[in-house]
Each structure stands twice: as structure tokens, then as C-alpha cells.
């Protein structure tokens, strides 16, 4: 049914270097969220903190009443059974073939018979389109296949929360589009809470219900998709539209001189907000909202051309 993740005042640093501080957000149950951020802003660290692989310095992460940041090791292993995580490279066990990889969590955690395991594994392999590749070793297949196999393994225990660490890195645009469609379909099917960490803007613009942006050691903004896509906030606007004009520079922040030089440059207009990706069977997801609903409720005029069918996916200027 999906589980809510409540993050409060989360701070993490490695030694003296602050990664991000004071991150407060609530990932709503059953919705798809995307966490964005320029390279090196600690998105993956954020994900690893959420599953308790890294301990935050301060703050709390509440999932079903348990604080991941301070609970015991035993509780942590219990709560992790709610999670399915897709790692960047799939993180398949190199010594096992794909079938055994996907069956691994079932064999470790359930007392199911081999024939039950077989039917579950085959169902998940079919879901990610890997039927027929069960006997391959992770070293023998392409990165995209490894990713899909990792997704099958993440889904095998019917998780309440699914975390994706850059599902689109290293994939071609077609496969990325298929994967995004798969994510939306999955959400419609299992109603779990999805959190995707990425820096692919196309994914961020079309897939999620909510978007968060990590920038310069803090959470710049977190909210409904339409709120961020219609935002005039310089950082959000620059990042979501892949522009060079704005506070983000090549190395983290731009200095004062660069910003001053840009001061009288006119910002390109906000591109129209695209339609959200719909489940392929046409039945809306439970957490899906009508296009433009947020804008209407909050009296925001979306950029011209928004929510039109077949609009072009132009970003950047």
C-alpha cells in the first residue's frame, strides 16, 4: 500500500565536509518522488542514509514509527525488508546467475518451495523483460540488462518502498523511456512509495508526482511536480530547464563576478510543463493528479503551452 517516509532536519557530513544539512521532507505514501541535484551534491548519500547504510549526524528518518537514524541494528534489518533498492549498476551478485540473484531474497527470507519461488521469479523477470536470460551471469550482460535484473530483484519481496539510484545513468534514451514507463506502470500496479534519484531532467519532468532539488548542501525545494516546474526560483529554474544562466556553475557555485556579469541577461521563458507519464494501460494511478490541478489550486499560471498532448520535449536555451 506504500509507506510514508518522514525526514526531519537530516544532516550528514564526512569528517569536516558537510554533505547536506537540515533536510526536512515527507515522501508521501504511494507517490513517485524524484530527488534531483547537480553532480556531487550527495544524492546517493541521501539514498544510502534513507536505508540506514550511512548514519546521519543529526535528524531523524521515520518509517512506520521507527527512526532509522537511531534504531538498533536488529530493527534496521527488519525495516529494510520493506525496501527494494535498485543500485546504480544493479549490484547483482557476481557469482550467481540472474535467476539465483532474483531468487536470493526469497530463499533467504521466506520458506517458499522452489516451485513457488520459480513462479515469482519468472513473473518478475517477465515484468522487466528479461525472460530467457535467467542463466546468464551478471558479467555477461549489458549495463541496461543488469539494471533491469536489479529491479526484478528489488521487487521480488513486494516492497512498500522502492528506491532507485540513477536508473537512467548509462542507458540510451529509448531504454530510459522504457524504464520510465516501467516505473510508472509498476507504481500503478503495486502502489508502493517510489523515490528516484537522478539528474536526468526528462525523467524529472515527466515521471514523478513530487520533485525535490538538492543544491549547495541543502534541500532547495521539495513539492509537487507542477510547483517546481512553474517555479521562478533561480536554482530550481536553472536546473529543471538545463540552463547555463543561474546560480549553478561548472564547479558547484558561480562566484560573484560571474553572477554580476549575468545580472542583466534576460532569462529565457519557462518552457511549458509537459504531461505526466501515464500508466500504459490508461488507468490512472491512485496518486496521480489531473494535469494543471496544482497550478489552479494555487493560482499559478502555468507557462503557455503547458499540458498539451504531443507537445515537444524541449528543454534548455
Amino acid at each position, binding site marked *: 500500500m506504500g509507506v510514508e517516509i518522514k525526514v526531519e532536519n537530516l544532516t550528514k557530513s564526512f569528517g569536516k565536509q558537510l554533505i547536506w544539512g537540515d533536510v526536512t521532507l515527507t515522501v508521501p505514501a504511494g507517490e513517485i518522488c524524484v530527488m534531483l541535484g547537480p553532480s556531487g551534491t550527495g544524492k546517493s548519500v541521501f539514498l544510502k542514509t534513507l536505508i540506514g*547504510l550511512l548514519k546521519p549526524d543529526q535528524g531523524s528518518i521515520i518509517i512506520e514509527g521507527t527512526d532509522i537514524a537511531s534504531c538498533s541494528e536488529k530493527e534496521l534489518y527488519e525495516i529494510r525488508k520493506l525496501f527494494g533498492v535498485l543500485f546504480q*549498476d544493479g*549490484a547483482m*551478485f557476481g557469482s550467481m546467475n540472474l535467476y539465483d540473484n532474483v531468487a536470493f531474497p526469497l530463499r533467504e*527470507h521466506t520458506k517458499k518451495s522452489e516451485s513457488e519461488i520459480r513462479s515469482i521469479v519468472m513473473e518478475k523477470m517477465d515484468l522487466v523483460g528479461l525472460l530467457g536470460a535467467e542463466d546468464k551471469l551478471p558479467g555477461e550482460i549489458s549495463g541496461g540488462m543488469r539494471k533491469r535484473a536489479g529491479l526484478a530483484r528489488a521487487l521480488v519481496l513486494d516492497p512498500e518502498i522502492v528506491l532507485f539510484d540513477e536508473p537512467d545513468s548509462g542507458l540510451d534514451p529509448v531504454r530510459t523511456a522504457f524504464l520510465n514507463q516501467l516505473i510508472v506502470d509498476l507504481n500503478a500496479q503495486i502502489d508502493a512509495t517510489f523515490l528516484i534519484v537522478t539528474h536526468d531532467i526528462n525523467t524529472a519532468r515527466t515521471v514523478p508526482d513530487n520533485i525535490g532539488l538538492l543544491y549547495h548542501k541543502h534541500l532547495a525545494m521539495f513539492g509537487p511536480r507542477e510547483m517546481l516546474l512553474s517555479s521562478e526560483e533561480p536554482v530550481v529554474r536553472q536546473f529543471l530547464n538545463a540552463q547555463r544562466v543561474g546560480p549553478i556553475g561548472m564547479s558547484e557555485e558561480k562566484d560573484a563576478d560571474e553572477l554580476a556579469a549575468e545580472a542583466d541577461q534576460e532569462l529565457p521563458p519557462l518552457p511549458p510543463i509537459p504531461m505526466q507519464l501515464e500508466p500504459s494501460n490508461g488507468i490512472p494511478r491512485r496518486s496521480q493528479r489531473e494535469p494543471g490541478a496544482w497550478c489552479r489550486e494555487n493560482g499559478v499560471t502555468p507557462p503557455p503551452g503547458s499540458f498539451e498532448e504531443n507537445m515537444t520535449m524541449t528543454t534548455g536555451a
Partner: protein
Amino acid sequence: MASMTATRALAPVGAAGKLFAFGLDVGRALFRRPFQLREFIQQAWFIASVTIIPTALVAIPFGAVIALQVGGLIKQFGAQSFTGSASVLAVVQQAAPIATALLIAGAGGSAIAADLGARKIREELDAMMVLGIDPIQRLVVPRVLAAMLVAVFLNGLVSVVGVAGGYVFNVVLQDGTPGAYIASFTALAQLPDLWVGLVKATIFGLIAAVVAAYKGMNAAGGPKGVGDAVNESVVITFVLLFIVNFVISAIYLQVVPPKTG
């Protein structure tokens, strides 16, 4: 500045403490069910397969060197009839555990460190933790137990091969009397010597596997990190094993009175 120096000076203490804490974690996970029997058997077989032949090959010259050295010395004292006894004592008490330690650390430990290190940098260990499985219980405990078991067997192997090698060299090269060599076995050596050899080998197996697993699981920085982890684990294990060997030998010689022939 002062605090930085202090941090640097205390860094090795911290590293030692972390290694010790890891050892305690392994000890705790040892009793957690389910026990990974399959992994244990696979690992025991694997470690045995990479160590048996090198161990036998090391044991023969080891026994021979001791036989030559001790035999020559004892001849000067005119106590040839005790050659066998001295050889057994040296091989069973010292040479066998040390040769075992070198092989377990060099062949078994390096393989463990490389395996776990590769899994660490490929995020396999993270994935395992996220799937709700403790890698210490699932991977490290079976390896540690396997290394201990194989160390005990290797110790037996080295003892037998070493003593046999000593016999051959003594009888064939040094014109010793076969009967005297065998008859004097129990003149100086006693049963506790065998026990202490076994205890040493078990502890060496434990240390080698724990250090290797610790280093492997903390590998960082890509493929080079794995190489570094393997290198460090072998060096640290060697140093630790020789220190521990010294301590156990010293305690043993104090506690168990030497047999007077």
C-alpha cells in the same frame, strides 16, 4: 595543530579498535541462526584447495632444514639419539603452526580479502544489507570458521610431512639410525605439544580470516582499493600472527613443564 597531531598519532589505535570491534561482531554473528552450512562447506573446500599443495611443498623443506640444523648441532653435543625428539618438538610446536599461518594468510586470506573487497566496491554488500541480510553472518562467519577448520587440518598435514621429511633427511643424508629417530619421538616431546600446535593453528586461522574479511569489507576507492586491501590484509596478518605465536609460546613454556628425558 596539536589536535591534528594527536589525531594522526592515535589513528593506528583507532584502526586496531575497529578491527577488534569487527572481530566481536563476527563472534556475535557466530551464534545467530540460520547457520550458513552451504557457504561454510564451499569456503572450506575452496580454502583447502588453494592451500594444500603449497603447504605440503613448504613443509618438506621446512622439516628438512630443521632436521639438518638440529641434527648437525646435536651431533656436536654427542646426543644423536635425541635427533628425532628435537625435530618433532620443533616441527609440531613451531614450524607447523607458522607454515600453516603463512599459507592461510597468504593464500586463503588474500582470496577472502579480494573476494569481499570486489563485492564491496560493486555495492554487492550494500545490496545484501538492503535485502535484510547481514553480510557478516552470511559471508564472514562461514569464511572464518572455514579458515579455522582448514588451518587445523593443514597443521596436521605440515606436522606429518615435516616430521617425515626430517626423518628422510636425517636417515639418508646424515646417516642417522632410523630406530633411534623414531624411538626418541617421545623422549622430549609430549602430548600437550601437539595440543598447543593445534590451538595455535586454530587461532591463526581465526586471525587471518578476520583481518582479511575486515580489510575486504572496508575496501574503498575502486579496483585499486581492492588491491590495497589484499596487500594490507596479508601484511597485517603476518605481523599479528608472529606476535601471537610469540605470546602463546611464551605462555605455554611457562604453564606446561618441559618433559625431562
